[in-house]
């Protein structure tokens, strides 16, 4: 099912990624992810966007485009690159997945803060499509429209106004005393953190990569 030799050869590298990312998942979970990666890529070494877009289960997700793009976004690779890749290998796949690992209960406060920042950064990158470090009104609008696109009969105006209201909220929370002629450019990462500081991310953005039943690993591809 997967290329065992390749896997073993690179296992040490994957574990290194694990350590780098404070991964708390076990080798078992890495193996599961590797299996899935192989399945998605059709046993090649790299996954392209088409591979991911072919997953049928994602069709109903209103933000599938953003999710898929997130995988190919260089900013999610914990390096300081910007731009996007065309294909990703397993290490990059793991890197992106590492954003969702559950926090170990023995982690210290700093580690938890780092993890939280990582997760927030992931979300921020999802919004900030033009890589300028700010979420502008248009970008936010796009987000809200996408989110609401599956709710049926929500017209763009509603989505827009909701996005506008949200922006206004951010502005008022973060820069309450703007001078009369200032412009509020957009949401920076600090503002983003600020408005979401009440939410508890650990439970909301964590997955345990359990062993998957092969029967569930159907992604619409013909290859085994």
């Amino acid at each position, binding site marked *: 099912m997967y290329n065992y030799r390749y896997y073993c050869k690179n296992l040490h590298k994957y574990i290194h990624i694990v350590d780098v990312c404070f991964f708390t998942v076990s080798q078992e979970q890495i193996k599961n992810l590797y299996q899935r990666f192989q399945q998605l890529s059709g046993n090649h070494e790299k996954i392209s966007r088409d591979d991911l877009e072919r997953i049928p289960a994602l069709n109903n997700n209103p933000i599938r485009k953003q999710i898929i793009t997130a995988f190919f976004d260089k900013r999610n690779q914990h390096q300081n690159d910007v731009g996007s890749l065309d294909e990703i290998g397993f290490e990059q796949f793991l890197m992106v997945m590492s954003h969702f690992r559950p926090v170990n209960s023995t982690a210290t406060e700093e580690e938890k803060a780092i993890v939280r920042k990582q997760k927030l950064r992931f979300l921020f990158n999802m919004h900030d499509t033009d890589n300028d470090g700010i979420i502008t009104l248009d970008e936010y609008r796009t987000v809200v429209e996408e989110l609401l696109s599956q709710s049926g009969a929500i017209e763009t105006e509603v989505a827009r106004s909701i996005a506008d209201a949200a922006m206004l909220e951010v502005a008022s929370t973060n820069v309450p005393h703007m001078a009369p002629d200032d412009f509020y*450019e957009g949401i920076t990462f600090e503002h983003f953190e600020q408005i979401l500081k009440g939410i508890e991310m650990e439970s909301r953005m964590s997955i345990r990569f359990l062993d998957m039943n092969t029967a569930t690993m159907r992604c619409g591809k013909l290859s085994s």
Partner: protein
Amino acid sequence: MILILLHGSRGEIPSKPIAATILPFVKPNDGVQTYPEDQKNNLPVFTMNYPRIQIPFEITLWVLLASFAKIGFHVYHKITIWVPESCLLISIGLIVGAIMHSVHEEPPAVLTSNVFFLYMLPLIVLESGYFMPTRPFFENIGTVFWFAVVGTLWNSIGIGISLFAICQIPAFGVQDINLQENLLFSAIISAVDPVAVLNVFEDVSVNEQLYIVVFGECLFNDAVTVVLYNMFSFVAEMPVVEPVDVFIGVARFFIVGLGGMAFGILFGFVAAFTTRFTSKVREIEPLFVFMYSYLAYLVAELFAISSIMAIITCALTMKYYVEENVSQRSCTTIRHVIKMVASISETLIFFFLGVVTITTDHEWNWGYILFTLLFAFVWRGLGILVLTQIINPFRTIPFNMKDQFGLAYGGLRGAVSFALAFTLPDTIGRKQLFVTATIAVILFTVFLQGISIRPLIEFINVRRTNRNLETINVEIHCRLMEHTMAGIEDLCGQWSRFYWKDKFMKFNNRILRKILIRDGRAESSIVALYKKLELQNAMEILDTASGNISAAPSIVSLSPNVELLMTKKFLAADLRNIHDILSKNMYKIRERTVAYRGKHALPNDSQTREILIRRHATIRRSLRPRSFQSSNVPRTHKYFSLPAGKSLESRFDAARWHYTDDHETLSEVAYPSQRSRFGKPARSSSSKAMIPLHRLGTLEEVPSTDVLNEESSSTGQGVFRTNSSYSDSRVPHPRRLYSLFDDNNSELGHVVLIQLRDWPHQEPSQGP
């Protein structure tokens, strides 16, 4: 006066003032004697027929007395901070009971366990179920059931067996209690009681996880308690217990638990379905909620399955759909009434607990009772410890030691145990001892643990909740995270709770909503929140403006300058102006889930009056030099909190307006927007928030035909120009003011929404 009344009745309430703070209790009946009849048998001028009204009269007086007590407590704020209300009420009950005992009166006959189980308990449980915060509940549902079921089992069996061991010691003189009876007793006292716990926990703002687990546990352990109680009372009469009985017990547990839930869900759906058709009979809408829940409870009692679970599941299921179907006024009525009856029921329960404590015959046995207390405490602590160890790996946020302490210490016993003790069959020899022991345990836990839990929790610094105000951003991002996680899971081929939640939401949207909701469209929670906030804001503003529309501060209008937005920047002046102008009415969005804000606060109350700034201001219009607009800021700008520019339909269709005959409180008016007459480019769409007005179902509007025509004749695509331009001086008469303030202002704070537009109206001549 007391004596006279006592003559005429049995068990009358003493009229003596209980505490200095309680208002003097005015006796409605003057103790006027009937004149003795003279020989001629004249028509009696004045008669008194007490027995006829005795029962309702006594009930009313008891309720009033308990309510006065509640009023009294709040006169002294300091008391309620340190002493939970349940303790105070029990104390008052003790005093009243002492008084009654000293005059050798019986407690009112109305207090039987039947009354408790059939009339008082369902109300309290309904309130708990209705206001339960659903999202945290479902996220923690495994833990809740784990503690409720296994925890209660552990407690009962542990306590029972240890007590049996104690009974073997001859020194205590209780050797005649056999194992079954001990187990029966322990089943009674191991049930953590929702009434007591919530009363205490409401003031101690522990973190959400802890709260929901305690809350859920005490609500749902009823299933186990019912089974154990029935099983053991049945078995207590049998000389020998066989293993097959244990299996039957287990099977019975599943029937009881699942049956209760099934009934609840069934009635919940039926209720939701019924409310779909009640648009013409709005006055009786709240009735359905109550009747169906109560029916669920009674039917479950009929089959001796867990009625508490039935009513809770009914409330949970029903709430979501019913609140969409009924009118706003009915919704408020439902909430208010539930809170009211639950509050009074709870007050009465504690009160009577105190009274009956004094007036029953007690049998005291030091050894047994002390050991009961000890074991109750010890086994709960042990149970929590062990169970948490087992379940922590499955939780995303494990419980630390402090949380566990909170859980263990918060296991108060209360009225349910009390009532169960009273229903013990008389065949049990030591019934009085059991009753006494139960009362002792209850009083001990409520007083000692109830009073000390608050300082202890603060001392050991249990994680507190951060009641994040639910802003639109938070809501959007919560949604976003859910979708992201569901997407990632699909990508990895994983199934977990996001998957199930997603599936359920799809099922809900596709099927359930169509059936159960009138005009059931799939609706995003973001939009729902947004609408709700709008409504609440409207009410807030009207409250502060005392319903006088013209006195409402002239504030924000809705549509931003389109040109401004095109540059993708917000003008700070707008924000600044919003701040200034709204300074009196600053508000923040209230929490959506308000269940644990405060037990006796209505969900829509708000102490803070800060207005959320949501709209871009068009105030800038008054400040910025405009190249293309006239600067005619209408003096009488009113705030439309509901930004109704147009409905979500592409056409401003008059047929969409719902005319309700009975003048619903909430009429959200869509005011037709002004169009910019200054040659704005067609593509600039206004960012006015459009709310799908018809969705609220309570709209009432008298459309102004000419405005409608105007709009229809405009782009017709629902693109509205900003209403910032007006060069015409014609002011439309307030035909667009629809809400009915007059009769609505006197409602339960539920004021109607406003909408007034007095700015000049445009001629439809220049629109693009």
